[in-house]
């Protein structure tokens, strides 16, 4: 049951440029999260935005959420070579699965390459 879908699948930019990745989902959510994965490693949480929030910032990251369009975007400003990684959005699809637990569904990710 795929919920979030990232776009584009791959993105290549020069160091210093901004990178924008998008995520679309299908059903109502409580919140949406973005994660980063360096090659062959586990995922690292970047930012969580709740359904009643429209924008959130964390350092060089800016996330927006448009619940009417069921979409979110992740903007990385002034990119660095170290930002090269895959980026995933994850949504809960509003499905409460047990005491204190919502299932998170991940998209297939956007592979970002930042060229020095």
């Amino acid at each position: 049951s795929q919920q979030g879908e990232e776009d584009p699948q791959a993105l290549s930019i020069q160091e210093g440029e901004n990178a924008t990745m998008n995520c679309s989902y299908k059903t109502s959510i409580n919140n949406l999260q973005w994660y980063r994965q360096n090659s062959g490693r586990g995922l690292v949480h970047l930012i969580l935005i709740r359904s009643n929030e429209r924008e959130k910032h964390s350092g060089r990251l800016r996330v927006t959420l448009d619940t009417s369009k069921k979409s979110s975007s992740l903007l990385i400003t002034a990119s660095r070579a170290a930002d090269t990684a895959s980026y995933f959005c994850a949504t809960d699809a509003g499905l409460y699965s047990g005491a204190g637990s919502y299932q998170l569904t991940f998209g297939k990710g956007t592979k970002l390459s930042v060229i020095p």
Partner: protein
Amino acid sequence: DVKVTQSSRYLVKRTGEKVFLECVQDMDHENMFWYRQDPGLGLRLIYFSYDVKMKEKGDIPEGYSVSREKKERFSLILESASTNQTSMYLCASSRLADKTLNEKLFFGSGTQLSVL
């Protein structure tokens, strides 16, 4: 520093073998998850647990079982490994959340399992 530790980084097993993947977290989290990640398919939830001895099926539980005898440890078991279970396996944990909030996941570094 919070930590989710997976017992093996790389594992090679033969078809038909029983395989145990171990995951330990030191954050006293209630929730623990097992995902598999395959190219082009993203992360898919296999099983999760929100309490000791509790488990729930995810999207792709067939061919797998899990064990949660202690709060900090969540094991994934492949009863009879098959070649289509060759994959990257990711363990994650999160703390208990109320019904309107979801907490971020902390991931282990992953186990790349090859079944020959």
